[in-house]
């Protein structure tokens, strides 16, 4: 029984890895389930048992990456001794490290999910859940240990960090410096700022300010808001914001 489960898991991973290879070479649109099944050495019917659609393969791999990231972090024996900044930075760096062999594939994931938010966000839900669960753990541990003060808007933080991490991934996809050196620098430096914000409880103050400005100024300019909301970019970001809520 147990071995069966393990076998199933192995087959699943094999299919995902094959999907990355095929989609990277052929592109998401052109890749067929049949090709992927062949590459994974499973039957044409079997693949549908695991992944009923091509989209499920795409996002299934994202989840698989997230699981590997978690395993990697667990394998760092003194991870619990890291500062909260180091832990969060390690989370981002490890995510990049795991994505590295499938970087072109990630490019396709981004195009499909952020290009057409309607499709993407619901599909990435599980990946996001896995990611934010790690952030919650890290932040809770730091607050419990007294390393960070109690954070206002605590439940919002992991989602903000998820957006930040996606921003970093997007930057990385565009980074053509040798060895992605620029991404390393951007992460290192932005993490120092994030740590500073967390340490001073600044998130709350920032959000208070935003909500004050929103209530007192933006709300009185509803016409402006209306015309703005017709701009396609803003629709997308509003959707994201509500998605986050």
């Amino acid at each position: 029984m147990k071995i069966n489960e393990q076998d199933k898991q192995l087959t699943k991973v094999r299919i995902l890895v094959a999907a990355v290879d095929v989609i990277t070479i052929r592109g998401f649109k052109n890749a067929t389930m049949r090709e992927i099944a062949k590459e994974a050495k499973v039957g044409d019917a079997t693949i549908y048992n695991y992944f009923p659609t091509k989209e499920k393969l795409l996002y299934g791999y994202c989840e698989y990456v997230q699981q590997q990231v978690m395993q990697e972090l667990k394998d760092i024996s003194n991870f619990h001794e890291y500062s909260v900044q180091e832990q969060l930075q390690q989370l981002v760096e490890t995510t990049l490290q795991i994505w590295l062999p499938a970087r072109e594939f990630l490019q396709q994931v981004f195009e499909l999910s952020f290009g057409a938010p309607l499709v993407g966000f619901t599909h990435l839900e599980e990946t996001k859940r896995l990611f934010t669960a790690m952030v919650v753990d890290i932040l809770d541990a730091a607050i419990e240990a007294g390393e960070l003060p109690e954070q206002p808007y605590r439940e919002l933080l992991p989602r903000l960090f998820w957006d930040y991490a996606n921003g970093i991934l997007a930057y990385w996809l565009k980074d053509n410096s040798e060895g992605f050196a620029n991404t390393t620098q951007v992460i290192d430096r932005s993490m120092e700022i994030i740590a500073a914000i967390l340490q001073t409880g600044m998130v709350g103050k920032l959000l208070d300010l935003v909500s004050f400005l929103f209530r007192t100024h933006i709300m009185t300019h509803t016409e402006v808001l209306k015309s703005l909301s017709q701009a396609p970019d803003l629709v997308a970001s509003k959707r994201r914001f509500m998605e986050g809520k």
Partner: protein
Amino acid sequence: MESVLPEGKWARAGIVGSTALKVGLREVQHKVKRPFMSLERQQADKLDTDDKNAELIFNALTQLRGTALKVAQMLSMEVEILPERYRKELEKSFHQVPPLNRVLVRKAIQEQLGQPPEYLFTSFNDQAFAAASLGQVHYATLQDGIAVAVKIQYPGIHVAMKNDMKLMRKLAPNLPNPQMVLQSLEEVGARLQEEVDYAHEAATTQWFAEHLKIEGIHIPQVYPKFSAARILTTELMGGQHLDAWLATNPSQEARNRAAQSLYDMMVYSVRELKRLHVDPNPGNYLFHADGSVSLIDFGCTKQFSAEFIHILPQLLKAFLEEDVEAILAAYRILGMDHKPTTEHWYQEVLRPFAHWVALPLQTESFDFGQHQDYTSNAREIIQRLSQNTKYLPKRIPLKRAIGFPIY
């Protein structure tokens, strides 16, 4: 908390730009005020301006992190280029580099050696024990219990370096002696490219460990399996940096031995190996209780031509005998010309230099304790000489041409 570092090329440009502006403003203020002041006040005020400029420039440099620090260190060695007060500020940068956190240490090792530290080493201390100019150094032990020093380069620093050098060039016109600084920056740039390449350093260290077998001098073994382009693992040497060693109040005997060993090493390197360790930064020597010395950091070495090695003793002999013609002839062969060679130039410039060079060579032993100003005297003497030196087409920097470090 660590300082928040400026981001990206444009932020860097911002730092340099605003510093250049501030320095420029001070210079203007200084010039405007000048006509209304007594000569004495003018002098004092110039010093004051220099101080503030030095501080501003230093602040800008330290904000640029790795490269700038390295350049600052190198420029501060070029005694003839920068006035005393700039140098003092720059010298502060020795042993002062912002640390890499555990994430970057891990990333560097994983990227360079293909595995995280816990798989590679029996033990690995994730807190650095020493700063390096482009990274930091960690204690570790290998499987067979050998204690090693793992030098880790800040990931991506080699990429940032090229941009930094451009910005340094932008800053240069605001320093005194801009021509010289620019010229020197070029050389510094070339040396940096060498220094960022730890594989090159590993090979050089191995070469010296094999060839420089001198009593009283130790050179660490390299562990190539644990080294790469940006990681260098060497045998851990005991000993202490000069200031720490001196604080232990070593015996006169130990001091003499250290000095003699260093001198022997230099002479042997130049004469026999035709190749010299030319980064005499105090951080690169570790002194042992018995007065023997460990030489580390072979990031920067100099190969001498057979011709140079041949001329050098003649030049020193000419200095000893104060034989002007022979001195100038030797210099010409080395590609340096001195015009006009007037009597005044000889008396005021060359002679003091010749005297200074020859002084320690005239006696069986030379007591630096009794000539405390020996090194500091050099600065002015060399500066005067270099102002009068013209390099013939194949330019050899003065410091190299003299053949031994005068720092």
